């Protein structure tokens, strides 16, 4: 870590500066007024000016070949700024393709991802929201001419409306299998969901004899789903650290300036100690996430456990810190004008995104062999 620290710091500084300038809170609010907050120009500039679309794509597929440690910096900053871009969904999609090990599919999609022209989104969960291969009902059937068709309904698909390809987990007679689906194809219907967190649009994707391209082998996607989930969890954890850190800063700033009874409210122990607890939670989340990222980059055997632990820790910390940010701000924290509710929405929605805390805990226990 230490040897790259300077580069990581520089990356963080430039991403933060870019987002502060290009997508300040006012712009986030403007973009999220509609169902589709996607800003193509912003997305293009994230590639041309920041060069972050290909960070975690291997060089042979046109990327920079950096590890998750670098990607985590970007996620932290995107979380901090609540930037409504399909970076998370595309990242998870790309890593899922890499995990599937299908070189043709990677060559087809990943150079576009690295160039910023292709966005992806993984459609794994169905109505109950869990990422569990055993409960996938969406069926894939091979046609006489060898092509595949999908039938079923996927829920909670992030940024589906702006994806060039949907990476879909479906069921064949061989078991869970991965497919790529063109969202513009006949038989694919994308319906926006009413969501708590408008900075991350979610959609219902209905597949009605939708043409699909097989990724990898039929029946091989059970373990890929677990890996895909790990990438999602890591990205969400890093986002959560950034968002929680920002909430802490907002709270401390307010507590040190807001005067009541002739003194800053932060000088009252009840507020001061709350801020201290928030800091402890943020640091815990940061440590857990950093550990998980390093384990994942090193391919260590405890990686899946570290990731599950980081996801649980960070989700809980982000919800706690966002909730208490509202409390520290008193009445103003409960207003539409204040950003506290945006962070609260993000934290709550992200915690539920890949199945929620109960399933996350089950997953951790399962990975620990309990």
């Amino acid at each position, binding site marked *: 870590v230490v040897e790259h620290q300077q580069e990581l710091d520089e990356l963080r500084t430039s991403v933060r500066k870019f987002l502060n300038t290009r997508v300040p809170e006012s712009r986030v609010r403007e973009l999220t007024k509609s169902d589709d907050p996607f800003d193509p120009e912003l997305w293009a500039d994230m590639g041309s000016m920041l060069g972050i679309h290909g960070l975690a794509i291997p060089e042979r597929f046109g990327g920079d070949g950096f590890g998750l440690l670098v990607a985590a910096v970007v996620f932290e900053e995107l979380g901090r700024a609540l930037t409504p871009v399909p970076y998370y969904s595309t990242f998870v999609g790309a890593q899922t393709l890499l995990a599937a090990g299908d070189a043709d599919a990677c060559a087809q999609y990943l150079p576009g991802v690295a160039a910023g022209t292709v966005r992806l989104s993984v459609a794994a969960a169905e109505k109950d929201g869990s990422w569990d291969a055993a409960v996938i009902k969406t069926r894939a059937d091979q046609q006489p001419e060898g092509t595949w068709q999908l039938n079923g309904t996927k829920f909670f698909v992030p940024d589906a409306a702006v994806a060039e390809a949907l990476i879909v987990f479906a069921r064949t007679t061989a078991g869970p299998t991965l497919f790529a689906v063109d969202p513009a194809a006949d038989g694919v219907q994308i319906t926006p969901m009413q969501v708590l967190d408008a900075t991350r649009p979610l959609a219902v994707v209905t597949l009605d004899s939708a043409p699909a391209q097989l990724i990898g082998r039929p029946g091989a996607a059970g373990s890929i789903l677990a890996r895909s989930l790990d990438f999602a969890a890591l990205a969400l954890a890093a986002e959560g650290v950034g968002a929680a850190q920002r909430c802490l800063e907002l709270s401390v700033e307010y507590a040190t300036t807001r005067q009541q009874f002739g003194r800053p409210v932060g000088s*009252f*122990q*009840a507020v001061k*100690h709350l801020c201290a607890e928030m800091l402890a939670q943020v640091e815990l989340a940061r440590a857990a996430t950093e550990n998980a990222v390093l384990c994942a980059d090193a391919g260590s055997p405890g990686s899946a456990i570290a990731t599950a632990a980081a996801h649980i820790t960070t989700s809980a910390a982000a919800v706690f810190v966002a909730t208490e940010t509202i409390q520290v701000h008193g009445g103003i924290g409960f207003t539409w004008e204040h950003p506290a509710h945006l962070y609260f929405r993000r934290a709550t929605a992200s915690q539920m995104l890949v199945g929620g805390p109960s399933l996350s805990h089950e997953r951790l226990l399962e990975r620990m062999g309990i």
Partner: protein
Amino acid sequence: VKREIFDSEHDDFRATARAFYDKECAPHTEEWERNGITDRSVWLKAGETGLLGWEAPEEFGGQGITDFRFNAIMTEEYHASGTAGVGFGLQNDIMASYLVHMTTEEQKKRWLPGFVSGEIITAVAMSEPGAGSDLAGIKTTAVRDGDDYIINGSKTFISSGILADLVVTAVKTDPAAGHKGVSLIAVEADTPGFTKGRKLDKIGQKSADTAELSFVDVRVPATNLIGEENRGFYHLMRNLPAERLGIAIGAVAQARRALDLTTAYAQDRKAFGQAIGTFQVNRHAIADMTVLLNVMQVYVDRCIIAVNAGDLTAEEASGAKLFATEQQWQIMDRCLQLHGGYGYINEYEIARIWRDARVQRLYGGTSEIMRDLIGRKLGF
């Protein structure tokens, strides 16, 4: 919040109980803690004062009163006075149910006078090394032999196990029938083959004699059977609401003792030139605990009225026990924290009652078992 469940007779009883604890028990707490056991003589004095077995009919020395408010008062003043270790709660809250309400005339004659006078200290032996709340899994057996039962097995975690003169023992009289093969048989402590084993070394409640008991070919007359043969499980179940409510009452009372000690400490103890209670976090903590205690008290008082009316259900009692003991633990721990380093020093009462309180979430069924019972009753 003013408590509204008591009449003047309860107030008089409370004064009697408090005076007794203050004079006969609290001064001995340290000595009893050191010895790991209390003194039998205090039982006789309690009997003389009318603090034992008032549920027994008058002809056997009792008063024929079944009113759980008296039980509550005994427990409350026990904690308020700083008493430790004496098993009056077991005798009055739990054992009376079996010995007064499930016994034959002949049994009443044999046991109740001593039960009321304090000459017969009683205990109930349910738990075994391999079976706690899972009563159907007990292994101790009683085999009928002519006019006797012959009992074999072992019991553990038995409160008052060392001092007990009479042990109501849960046994299997039909080992194949699960919970439908359980019976309750009273065993006198001097019966050959019955031995009191190790006094268990516990985290807290050091002066309470919790023991292992062993039964090797213990022959007792069939007339020692309490209630009906093979109905023991149901007899035990019948008493569980009162038993669990008793624990909830203790939780509130002991938490109140902790808070009283802590409030006084927070006024006396100075740091950075001011009483520590005047720091905002501490002031808020004491405020929170005071409010919580009021809530607990109102809830538990309501349950006391319900148990008197006979309509406190098992799951309601489980809920009261679960809530009161979990909240109690939060209060105990916070109170100890407010004592700073002194909270960790046994010289301070908070250290002892913090240790003593830990078992509240375990005995009478753990919090997890309570949740399970409630959840199952809700149909899950």
